[in-house]
């Protein structure tokens, strides 16, 4: 089972698709969740996910706005997509009936 932060990284990387790399994932995550995401936390989690085979990373092209430094590109593997789907379904199922869940029985839309 994934951790919360691992799931967030997988989801953001999946939505960014071809443009998924360190800085872009961090910016998206901070914008969508409103929480700070440190570079250390991001890259150590990416390493862990890669070790589990849930992500694949490689060094991309260098760009002038990055001071000529290369990007670390990220892609979600099929195993990663499966793990993220499992996590999402588990969270959705377990949240049914909770006061904050919009899908609880009898809830008004």
């Amino acid at each position: 089972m994934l951790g919360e932060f691992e799931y967030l990284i997988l989801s953001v990387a999946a939505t960014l698709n071809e443009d998924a790399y360190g800085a872009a994932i961090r910016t998206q995550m901070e914008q969508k969740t409103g929480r700070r995401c440190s570079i250390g936390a991001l890259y150590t989690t990416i390493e862990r996910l890669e070790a589990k085979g849930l992500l694949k990373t490689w060094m991309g092209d260098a760009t002038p706005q990055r001071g000529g430094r290369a990007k670390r590109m990220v892609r979600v593997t099929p195993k990663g997509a499966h793990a993220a789907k499992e996590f999402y379904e588990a969270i959705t199922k377990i949240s049914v009936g909770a006061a904050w869940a919009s899908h609880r029985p009898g809830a008004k839309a």
Partner: protein
Amino acid sequence: MNRIIVDLVALMLPPCDREAVLGDLAESSAPLAYSLFAILGFVLRRQFRCWLSWRPWFAAIALAYTTTWLLMGNSVDVNADAVNWYWGPASWHYVPYRLTDFALSFLRLFAAAWSAGFAAARISRGTLWASMLLLLGPSIHCFEMFHVETHFDHHIIQLSPFALFLYLPMMIFGIRAGLHNLRPRPWLTLLLIIPYCVQLIPMTKIQNGPNFALWTLILLWPCWYLVWLTLPSTRRTKEAYSL
């Protein structure tokens, strides 16, 4: 100036991580303090993750802290044999004996230092700095108290305390091979082990008894680790030979 400071601090990261992190910081135009905290935070997190495994503990305590005593002993032996050779009687009769003594002690030092460096780098490369600190600590401590003399006729020769660090250059070669995931050829591994075995047989009988030989064999475990790595069952096709 700020960029130079950030680049210097980022040297603590491995090259590919350094490239990505420095690029991300440049892209977000992060100020100096933020960049430094971000890099240091990443380094600390990586180290913390490394130390959760048994490998760094094993490399630091079972390898570095124990073999440093053997390495210092071997370094002093090499220095003493070199002094013997230089100050000994100027007769061709003694040359083969002194040459053999020196060559064997040098090979012993090479075997212990190279294999210890190789094993430390191969077992836990991320915490190599800690292994080296534990290895050099006792050597620096002994450096301050070092006082070994040898006598020749009317001469009293004091060995240099720097002799304690003779193992370092050979160890650096071993570390380099370990970091590059290279492995020694089987014949080289045998060449590393044989001087010790040759030396231990007479020592067991004459001087120090079987306990000494047993302890030396235990302290030589990096050499046995090399033997294990050369076995065909542990060999991976991608790995190249170091020597």
